[in-house]
């Protein structure tokens, strides 16, 4: 019977991912006895703390001997079987409870069903995690202290020193929650916001924004950031920044839009929309498509901003993009287009774009009900604008069969009604027989 040998070379305990827990250092660091090792009396308390520590630390480099082979999670109550293999108590109980009478790893039949608590391993686990925890706490405190230091430095320095300070602060804030709290508590948000203005260089602007997105901003801070000159600074970075900087800008703008004091005119800027469209169309960085489209959708909800979106020619651009997007992105794009189609300029712009109808027809019953709903609504708006012209195009691209599909499907009643309405509209110019022939499933749909 093949036996799984724990890798024991020269007194080393194999650790996960190259982290070796050797005996010497283990003794020196006090993992073996000494620091944190308690008697059984403190068992329960330690267990609670251990669970908390494991969760907080969320480490990926836990030594493999501490990991339960069944759940692949660190063990908080290790028990050993008669085969010598150790498991997390709750997991092995479940295994045995399912009727298995074997050792999960060695596949041996158990000759004894006793579960021996592996105190030694438990102590080691506790000590190791405690150590890690203490170290992390120290780093956090350091982070907190360092963050305070950096904030006061920021008030003094200029030029290159300022950029360096900001860079370090941004790193701290993204890695340590204590740094984040420190910055917020010590008025760091106001200080950072004050760096945004009409003369902010790109280096400073991008670092400030990268830092701000990691912080919780109160309503006042958001109101402060919504000042026109600061918004302009953000838009500038969105326009000419690296992909990461752009994504940070998108996140920041979304946070600002979340605030109940938000007014649409804060972001009523053509430059913002042009920058957003550029992000959405950037083929080199597809990870920007979803965030960009999500923000565009949020913007299109506001009536007064729809005209701006149309002014920069976004409607035909979105139509052209749709075939290249993944489903979630398509849904966002369709939402925006439907919002735009509710305005008269939108209807006109969509009608003028030759690819609108074919693209929308293709999307019917293709991706999801929501997408179908959007596409249907857009088609209705456009066709109602110029019924004769549009309906012939639509019919040629196979809309009839698709609409029949919708009507026969399990979609909502409203959708079916809309489909019926559109079908009627399209059929007006055709004789019955002609139209019936168009209703057959054509290659376009297959």
């Amino acid at each position, binding site marked *: 019977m093949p036996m799984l040998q724990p890798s024991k070379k020269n007194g080393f305990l194999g650790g996960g991912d190259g982290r070796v827990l050797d005996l010497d250092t283990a003794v020196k660091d006090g993992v073996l006895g000494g620091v944190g090792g308690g008697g059984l009396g403190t068992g329960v308390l330690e267990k609670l703390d251990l669970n908390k520590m494991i969760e907080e630390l969320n480490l990926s480099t836990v030594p493999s001997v501490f990991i339960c082979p069944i759940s692949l999670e660190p063990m908080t109550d290790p028990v050993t079987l008669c085969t010598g293999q150790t498991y997390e108590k709750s997991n092995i109980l479940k295994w045995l409870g399912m009727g298995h009478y074997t050792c999960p790893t060695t596949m041996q039949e158990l000759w004894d069903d006793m579960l021996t608590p592996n105190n030694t391993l438990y102590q080691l686990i506790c000590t190791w995690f405690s150590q890690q925890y203490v170290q992390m706490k120290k780093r956090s405190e350091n982070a907190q202290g360092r963050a305070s230091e950096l904030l006061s430095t920021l008030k003094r320095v200029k*030029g*290159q020193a300022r950029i360096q300070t900001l860079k370090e602060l941004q790193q701290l804030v993204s890695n340590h929650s204590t740094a984040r709290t420190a910055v917020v508590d010590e008025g760091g948000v106001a200080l950072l916001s004050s760096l945004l203005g*009409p*003369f902010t*260089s*790109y280096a400073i602007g991008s670092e400030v924004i990268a830092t701000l997105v990691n912080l919780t901003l109160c309503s006042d801070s958001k109101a402060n950031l919504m*000042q*026109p*000159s600061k918004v302009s600074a953000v838009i*500038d970075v969105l326009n*000419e920044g*690296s992909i990461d900087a752009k994504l940070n800008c998108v996140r920041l703008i979304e946070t600002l839009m979340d605030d109940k004091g938000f007014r649409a005119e804060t972001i*009523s*800027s*053509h*430059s913002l929309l*042009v920058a957003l469209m*550029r992000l959405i169309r950037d083929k080199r960085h597809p990870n920007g498509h979803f965030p960009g489209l999500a923000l565009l959708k949020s913007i299109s909800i506001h009536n007064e901003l729809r005209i701006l979106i149309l*002014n*920069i*020619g976004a409607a035909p651009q979105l139509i052209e993009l749709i075939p290249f997007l993944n489903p979630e992105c398509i849904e966002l794009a369709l939402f925006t287009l439907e919002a735009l189609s509710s305005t008269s300029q939108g209807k006109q712009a969509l009608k003028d774009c030759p690819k609108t109808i074919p693209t929308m027809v293709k999307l019917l019953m293709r991706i999801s009900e929501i997408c179908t709903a959007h596409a249907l609504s857009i088609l209705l708006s456009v066709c109602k604008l110029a019924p004769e012209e549009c309906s012939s195009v639509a019919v040629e691209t196979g809309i009839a069969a698709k609409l029949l599909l919708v009507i026969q499907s399990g979609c909502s009643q409203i959708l079916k009604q809309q489909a019926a309405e559109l079908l009627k509209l399209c059929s007006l110019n055709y004789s019955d027989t002609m139209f019936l022939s168009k209703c057959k499933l054509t290659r376009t749909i297959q």
Partner: protein
Amino acid sequence: MGSVCCSQQHGRADSDEIEQTAEIEDRIERESKAEEHIQKLLLLGSSDSGKSTIFKQIKLLFQNGFDDAELKSYIPVIHANIYQTIKILFDGSKELSQSFSDSSRFHVSDENKEIGERLSEIGSRLEFPYLTPEIVEEIETLWQDNAIQETLSCSNKLQVPHCAHYYIENLQRLSNPGYVPTKEDVLYARVRTTGVVEIQFSPVRENKRSGEVYRLFDVGGQRNEKRKWIHLFEGVTAVIFCAAINEYDQTLLENETNHLMETKELFEWVLKQPCFEKTSFMLFLNKFDLFEEKVLKVPLNVCDWFKDYQPASSGKQEIEHAYEFVKKKFEELYFRSTSPDCVDRVFKIYRTNALDQKLVKKTFKLVHETLRRRNLFEAGLL
């Protein structure tokens, strides 16, 4: 024998020629390669928008500034400005006294009238006498006349140059025999740019190693026939368009057009030019300091373009609000005049005060950064 000698000489001349040609072609190639790396910037804007002041500032910041001889060469200009100013004020007071009902406030006192007439006459000549202490005294007396001060307060109807206050205040210093103009004096000097002026410079940065070379062109003087020569500037890296935003209430007496509307038309025209399809546009909203002073006293809606403006608050906030409104109007205008395929051009708006050297330096640093990033982006490195 002679013919042999001749042909030998011919041979030598030929090889000399070939060598020379090769050298010339080599030089042409080198220089064209160097030319490609020089980024060209074009200053545009209506008259009195501050283009030439920006030009002078760049010269002061990134070149060796003005040497003594150049500074002294501005003395006639400065003196001319003074004469022109006082003439405009005096003539203006006469005009206003005719067109206003309560004309008495524009009536220059009798003693000063004579001075006024004399100075006005001087001001209409083509050449001006050097400022003597006597003339200085006369100017000062006239300046202090109530009527002249009243006229000054209505300066939006006249063409009183901004330098008026500055020069009159410094009159004593400017009329000294050994007077050498300061940098600031030169910046205020107003002279109509004729032809094209250009300077080549390299923006000096903190680490001193900046490879970019810029060449700045100021074509201020030409008012008409722009469409004939504007295409010569195709391929220019960026257009710096200067618009003096304090001019929203200033009209030209001759044809009653508002200065800012003229700027608006010019901007629209420039944006639509095919030669600028790929050019970056840097809009300098200039004379911000004068705008700040004016906007709280004169509402923006006096200008047709801004008639839908509504003041929101007061004080500093109001100034910012008004500025944002103007900025938005220019932005709207830009996007309205831009075809969809040009929408990817770089377009940025900066608020400037061309007379403030520090501000110009800061602004230009940002312009330089934007252009650099654009280059990197186009090279696919960003």
